[in-house]
C-alpha cells in the first residue's frame, strides 16, 4: 500500500474484472469509492467506503466520484461485446481500423496527460483460473501436470537433438541407427510442442446457436462501425454463450484473409523469439547452408524480437516480420541441405524450425499485468498463441 494513496475510485466495479478488483483494493487497505449506475448490482458484501450512483458517461457524476480521491482504477468495458485490437496497424483488418484508431487516441490522451499511470492491456481475461505459466486451465485439471521442468527438458532435448542431427549430417556416413533414433526423438519433441500449442486452442466450441440477446442486431455486415463498443465478433470466454459460429462464410473475405495472413505470420513470430543461447542449433543450420538469405532472415527475426516485448504494452498482437517468405526460405534450405537418401527430416524440419525457439526464454522485463506474474517468455508466447487461439476460434474456416 502506498502511503500517498489512500482513496481510490473504481470505475467499472460491477463488471467482471471490477468485481474481482474492488475487493482486492479494499483488502489492500484503500478507501474505495465506486460509481455505479445501479447500486443493486454491487455484491451484498461489498466493502466500498463510498458508493456514488451515476453514469460514467456523465461528466458531473465522474467529477463527483473523483472528489477527494488520490487514484483512479478504470475497468470499464462492454462485458462480452468486445472487439479485438491488433498491434500492427498494417495487419489490422479494415473493419477494425477505426476502433483501433480510437483506442490509440485514448491511449495518446493518457500518455499526454502527464499523469502517473499504469496501463494494463491483456488480450483476454478469462473466467477460469490461471496457473503458473499463464496457461488457461479448466476448473478441474485436465492437463498432465507439465511444469517448467518439463519445458526446460523439452528445450534441452530439442537443442541436443538438433546438434546431433547436424553433426550426423556433417558425417559422410552417419550411423543409421543413431540417425533414426535422433530423428524420432526430434519428431517426438515436435509433436509435444504441437500438442502444447493445440492444448491452448482446445477450448470447447459451443454448439448452441443461440446468440447473445444484445449482440445479434449489432453484428455488422456492412462497413465497419465507428463506435468503440460495436461488437464485430465476440470472444469466447468459458462461460460465453455468444455464438461466434454466426460468422459464416459470408464474412468479408478481406477480413478472413487478413486473419489467415496473421495466423501464418504468427507461426513465424513464434520463430522470432528473442535470441537466447539456446538458439545455437538454429545457428548451425545457418552455418551449414552459408545462405545469406537465411542470415538475413535471422536478422529480420531479431528485429521482430525487439517488437515482441512491446506486445505487453499494447493489446496483444503478433509482431510480424516484414517478409513472410521465411517459411519459403526454410523450405529452400531444407532441400539443399539434406541428401535425398537419408532425408529423414524432410517435411519435418520446416515445421520444426518454426517451433524451435518457441520455448526460448525472453530477457524482456515483465509488465505489471497480473497475468504476467512470472514474466517469462513462455507467458509471452502463450499470449501469442492465445491470440492465435482466439483468432482461430473466431474464424474456424481460416
Amino acid at each position, binding site marked *: 500500500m502506498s502511503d500517498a494513496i489512500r482513496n481510490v475510485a473504481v470505475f467499472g466495479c460491477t463488471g467482471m474484472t471490477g468485481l474481482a478488483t474492488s475487493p482486492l483494493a479494499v483488502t489492500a487497505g484503500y478507501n474505495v469509492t465506486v460509481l455505479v449506475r445501479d447500486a443493486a448490482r454491487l455484491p451484498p458484501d461489498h466493502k466500498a467506503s463510498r458508493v456514488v450512483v451515476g453514469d460514467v458517461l456523465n461528466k458531473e457524476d465522474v467529477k463527483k466520484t473523483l472528489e477527494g480521491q488520490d487514484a483512479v482504477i478504470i475497468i470499464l468495458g462492454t462485458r462480452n461485446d468486445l472487439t479485438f485490437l491488433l498491434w500492427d496497424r498494417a495487419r489490422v483488418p479494415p473493419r477494425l481500423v477505426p476502433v483501433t484508431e480510437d483506442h490509440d487516441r485514448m491511449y495518446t490522451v493518457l500518455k499526454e496527460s502527464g499523469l502517473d499511470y499504469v496501463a494494463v492491456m491483456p488480450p483476454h481475461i478469462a473466467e477460469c483460473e490461471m496457473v503458473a505459466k499463464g496457461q488457461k486451465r479448466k476448473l478441474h485439471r485436465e492437463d498432465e501436470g507439465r511444469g517448467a521442468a518439463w519445458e526446460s527438458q523439452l528445450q*534441452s*532435448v530439442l537443442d*541436443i537433438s538438433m546438434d546431433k542431427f547436424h553433426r550426423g549430417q556433417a558425417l559422410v556416413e552417419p550411423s*543409421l*541407427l543413431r540417425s533414426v533414433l535422433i530423428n*524420432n526423438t526430434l519428431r517426438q519433441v515436435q509433436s509435444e510442442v504441437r500438442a502444447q500449442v493445440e492444448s491452448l486452442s482446445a477450448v470447447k466450441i459451443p454448439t448452441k446457436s443461440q446468440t447473445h440477446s444484445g449482440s445479434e442486431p449489432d453484428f455488422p455486415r456492412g462497413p465497419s462501425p465507428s463506435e468503440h463498443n460495436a461488437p464485430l465478433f465476440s470472444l469466447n470466454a468459458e462461460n460465453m454463450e455468444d455464438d461466434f459460429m454466426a460468422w459464416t462464410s459470408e464474412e468479408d473475405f478481406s477480413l478472413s484473409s487478413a486473419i489467415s495472413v496473421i495466423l501464418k505470420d504468427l507461426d513465424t513470430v513464434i520463430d522470432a523469439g528473442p535470441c537466447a543461447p539456446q538458439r545455437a542449433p538454429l545457428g548451425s543450420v545457418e552455418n551449414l547452408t552459408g545462405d545469406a538469405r537465411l542470415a538475413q532472415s535471422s536478422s529480420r527475426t531479431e528485429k521482430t524480437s525487439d517488437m515482441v516485448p512491446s506486445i505487453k504494452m499494447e493489446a496483444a498482437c503478433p509482431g510480424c516480420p516484414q517478409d513472410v517468405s521465411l517459411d519459403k526460405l526454410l523450405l529452400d534450405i531444407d532441400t539443399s541441405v539434406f541428401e535425398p537418401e537419408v532425408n529423414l*527430416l524432410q517435411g519435418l524440419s520446416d515445421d520444426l524450425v518454426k517451433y524451435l525457439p518457441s520455448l526460448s526464454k525472453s530477457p524482456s522485463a515483465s509488465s505489471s499485468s497480473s497475468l504476467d506474474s512470472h514474466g517469462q517468455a513462455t507467458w509471452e508466447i502463450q499470449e501469442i498463441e492465445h491470440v492465435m487461439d482466439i483468432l482461430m476460434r473466431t474464424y474456424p474456416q481460416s
Partner: protein
Amino acid sequence: MWSSCWTYSLNLSSVPGDGDSQSRWCLSQVKGAVDDDVAEADIISAVEFNHSGELLATGDRGGRIVIFQQEQESKNLPQCHAEYNVYSTFQSHEPEFDYLKSLEIEEKINKIRWLPQKNAAHFLLSTNDKTIKLWKISERDKRPEGYNLKEEDGRYRHPSSLTTLRVPVFQPMDLMVEASPRRVYANAHTYHINSISVNSDNETYLSADDLRINLWHLDFTDRSFNIVDIKPANMEELTEVITASEFHPLQCNTFVYGSSKGSVRLCDMRASALCDQHSKLFEEPEDPSTRSFFSEIISSISDVKFSHSGRYMMTRDYLTLKIWDLHMESRPVEIYQVHGYLRSKLCSLYENDCIFDKFECCWRGDDSEVMTGSYNNFFRMFDRDAQRDATLEATWENGSPGCPLKTWRVSAGSRRKRNEIGVDCLDFSRKILYTSWHPQDNIVALATVNNLYIFQEKLN
C-alpha cells in the same frame, strides 16, 4: 600389443565373506596393456568363446583377431584357475575404401561367431561393417621332411644329381597355429552389418545390417538370399532399424531380430521366402508412467540371445535385461534392472552419446544365470533361480588377487563408501559392452575399453 601382463593365481584358502557383499567370482586373468593410454586399434570390439570353451576369440578395432586357448592342464582340474594364453593372432579385416560412395570402411570387428567343430581345425566367422570372412584356424605340428628335389635348407637339387630316391615322411615340429581365410562373403550389404549367426544346420548363416538380413550358405560366397527387408520405399519414412539378429539354437528354420523400437520379431523361414511378415512379435507395452523423450531410445534392443535350451530368449535394452518365453509374446517373463539408477540421468547420457551404447548379454551354460555389462567397468550377474543379482567390478586393482570379488552398490548422489558408489561418481567412459560366458564352466570373459578380463567362479 597383446601380452598377458597380469595373471593372478587363485587363492585356494577359503576367505570368510560378509555374505552378501561377497560374490563367488574371482578375477582369473587380465589381458592387454597395463597403462590407460590404449591405442584406438587395440580397443576390443568382440569377445566370443567357442562351443567347447577351449578357445576364446577377441576382435579389436584394428581388424585383428586374437584367439586364446585354455591351458590343457588346468582344464581338467576344476579348482584351478582358467588360464588362457594366446593361441593365434591374425589380421582379419583391413580398412577398405568404397570408391563409389567415397568413404572408408572401418576394419573394426563387429562380431565373431564360431562354427561347431567338425574336424581338427577350428572355423570362425568374423565380420566388419561390410564383409564377412570365414577363417580356418588349424594347427600344424608335423611337417614333411625328406624331399628329393629340395634340400632341408631350401635349396633345390638338380634331378641329375640324384642317386637315390626316398619318400618324404612327416616329422614333428614346433606347434604352429595358422589362420587362413577360407571364404570372403562380400558386397551383400549396403548398410552396416551388426550381427551374424550360424544356423544349427551348420551349413548356413545369417548376416544382418540395419535394414536387411541375408542368408548365406557357408560354401558359396557369390550369392546370398535376402530374407528380411525393412527398408521403406521412401527413406524419409524410415523410423525403425534392425539392431540384432540370431538363429534359434535348435530349430534351423527360426530366427529372431530385434529393432530400434524395442520389438523383437521371430520369423519362420518355412512360412515364406521373404520373412518380412513375422511369425511372432515380442513387444512389451510401454509403461505410460515412465514415458519420456528417451523412451524409444532406451527401448532399442542392443542384443538378443537365445537360451541354450532354445526355450527362452533374452533381450538387452539400455536399462534392462528381459527374458522372454518364446511361447508368450505379450510380455517378458523376467525383467532385470541393469542400472535403473540411470533413468534420471537420461538427458545427460543422451547428450554425451552414452545412451546409444550397445551392450551385449550372455547366458550361462545351463541358462540359470545371465550376465551383462554396465558403466564404471561394472558388470551385472543375475541368478534366475535364486532371484539374486550382483554388481561386480572388472578391475585389477584388487586388494588381494584371487580373492572373491566384492559386490557393489550404486546409490543416488555422490557418496563414495566402501563398496558403494554414487551415481554421480560413475565413470561413463569405462564401460563393458562385450561379454561371453564359457558354454560349460563358470568362466566369463568380458572386455573393458583397455583390457580383456577373465573371471572364474570359486567353487568351494
